[in-house]
């Protein structure tokens, strides 16, 4: 399979009519991510929702990989799976997530939420499609080891052109840090 | 608290904590633990701990390969309690002193006919049951200590595991059988004082012998009648 995949890659043209293995896998994983995401918001078991979120985020990481955004993919796994999800589970445990259904997990205005979600998704899709309509990005040619989304490529771009935002980010992170500490301390004084 | 001893332990004797180090007293002024101390570097205690385990690893292990090789038990090992039934007078001291109440004794009284016409008939306790429940016994040895007639002994035998806990109650036949495994009491030190019992027995035996000798001598003297002088009584002990 891999050989076929590689062969089809090397002779790849810009066409949706002859889908390559990568594109097929991309669509399949995308469907899985969609399913996991729907389950995340529709299940009435809190921890199950968090675990479905793990599946969705992990699937997204695979999508990144398929788009050759190697660096972002592993950041996704490291940050989102490794910590945000742990954080989510933490929160659930601290708020007494029971085993089994929690009937009060439904907020009651699910239709409003669904509408909002559809609007947001529509906006995003329109935006992305409109912005990159005919822009083709070459996935790596065979034989090259450097990928568009590799760590090094990211580093080059980041530290050559985007240094100031990068430094601003540190201030943002510092603000978040101080904010978290202040909030948690107030919480403790109250409790 | 750091995991290893620290605090106000004096410089001397600190090396004792490492157990069988075998090293001479290096100046152990630094207290172990992460804090380090005067003279030591931080983490000295941690390094010491590592050294101890590593050194132990290079030594021969002390494990007895038990089922393959019998262990060498020290004298007076507490394996199982043996009963010398003949010495038992059913005084019940052992059963009463047992902290676990694991000694069961049944007996009845028997009246012996009087030996002489004038004497009273005597009663004697006859042992019906003597059992020790080794599933309860905690091997404290109090019963053996309190027995005034030397009827209970430690035996070093320890292989009497059973698949049924009830089997661990050893009845008197079994307890009597254990007697055969009781080792002889250890020999005394060469210069030790003679045990009281032996001294008393010897004294009694000597007295008896002297009395016999005296009687014999008296008889001989009586036979040889008055003319001769009695034999010198120098060997006779003073009464």
């Amino acid at each position, binding site marked *: 399979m891999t050989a076929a995949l590689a062969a089809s890659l090397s002779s790849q043209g810009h066409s949706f009519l002859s889908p390559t293995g990568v594109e097929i896998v991309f669509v399949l994983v995308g469907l899985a991510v969609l399913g996991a995401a729907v389950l995340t918001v529709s299940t009435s078991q809190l921890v199950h929702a968090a675990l479905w979120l793990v599946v969705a985020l992990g699937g997204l990481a695979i999508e990144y990989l398929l788009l*050759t955004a190697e*660096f972002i993919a592993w950041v996704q796994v490291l940050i989102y799976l490794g910590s945000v999800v742990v954080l989510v589970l933490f929160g659930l445990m601290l708020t007494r997530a029971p085993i089994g259904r929690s009937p009060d997990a439904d907020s009651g205005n699910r239709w409003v939420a669904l509408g909002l979600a559809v609007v947001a998704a529509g906006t995003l899709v329109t935006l992305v499609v409109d912005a990159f309509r005919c822009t083709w990005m070459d996935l790596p040619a*065979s*034989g090259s080891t450097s990928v568009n989304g590799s760590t090094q490529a990211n*580093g080059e771009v980041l*530290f050559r052109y985007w240094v100031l935002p990068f430094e601003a980010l540190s201030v943002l992170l510092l603000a978040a840090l*101080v904010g978290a500490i202040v909030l948690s301390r107030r*919480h403790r004084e109250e409790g | 608290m750091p995991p290893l001893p620290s605090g106000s332990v004096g410089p001397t004797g600190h090396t004792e904590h490492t157990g069988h180090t075998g090293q001479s007293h290096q100046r152990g002024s630094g207290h172990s633990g992460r804090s380090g101390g005067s003279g030591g570097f931080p983490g000295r205690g941690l390094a010491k701990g590592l050294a101890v385990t590593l050194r132990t690893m290079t030594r021969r292990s002390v494990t007895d390969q038990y089922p393959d090789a019998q262990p060498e038990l020290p004298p007076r090992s507490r394996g199982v309690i043996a009963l010398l039934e003949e010495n038992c007078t059913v005084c019940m001291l052992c059963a009463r002193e047992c902290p676990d109440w694991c000694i069961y004794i049944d007996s009845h009284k028997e009246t012996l006919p009087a030996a002489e016409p004038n004497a009273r008939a005597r009663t004697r306790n006859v042992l019906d049951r003597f059992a020790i429940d080794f599933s309860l016994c905690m091997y404290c040895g109090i019963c053996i200590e309190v027995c005034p007639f030397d009827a209970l002994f430690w035996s070093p035998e320890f292989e009497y595991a059973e698949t049924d806990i009830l089997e661990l109650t050893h009845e008197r036949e079994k307890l009597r059988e254990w007697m055969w495994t009781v080792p002889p009491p250890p020999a005394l030190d060469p210069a030790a004082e003679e045990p009281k019992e032996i001294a008393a027995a010897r004294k009694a035996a000597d007295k008896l012998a002297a009395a016999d000798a005296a009687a014999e001598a008296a008889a001989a003297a009586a036979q040889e009648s008055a003319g001769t002088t009695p034999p010198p009584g120098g060997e006779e002990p003073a009464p």
Partner: protein
Amino acid sequence: MEARAAVAASQQSGYFHAYAVVGLLAVIGVLFVASAFGANQLLRPYAPTQEKLLAYECGVDPVGEGWAQTQIRYYVYAFLYVIFAVDAIYLFPWATVFAKPGYGAGTLIEMFVFIGFLAVGLLYAWKKGVLEWT
């Protein structure tokens, strides 16, 4: 050098081939676990009793529900971690380029400024006693 060339040759298809192999290993791993569970199902006895299915709490019947109040201060650590992890991620792309020609000391200082800000945050947390347990 020959070896290097051989590596390059064997990795001709590069990126996608590499991750395809990783994916293949993932599939093999899942198959392994699944077959282990399957074989286990055939081998093992199944005799549940009510007592066996109780939660184990050192031999005492469980009291209350299977939920214990945990310390909220874990949560602060989790916050701290997320923020610092985001920071640490940036070290990797930086690490690959900062010593290359055209970057040099300037890039090093940029990163020091970045880390400096976060170190200030850590000091703040320390000072505020967040890192203390009690």
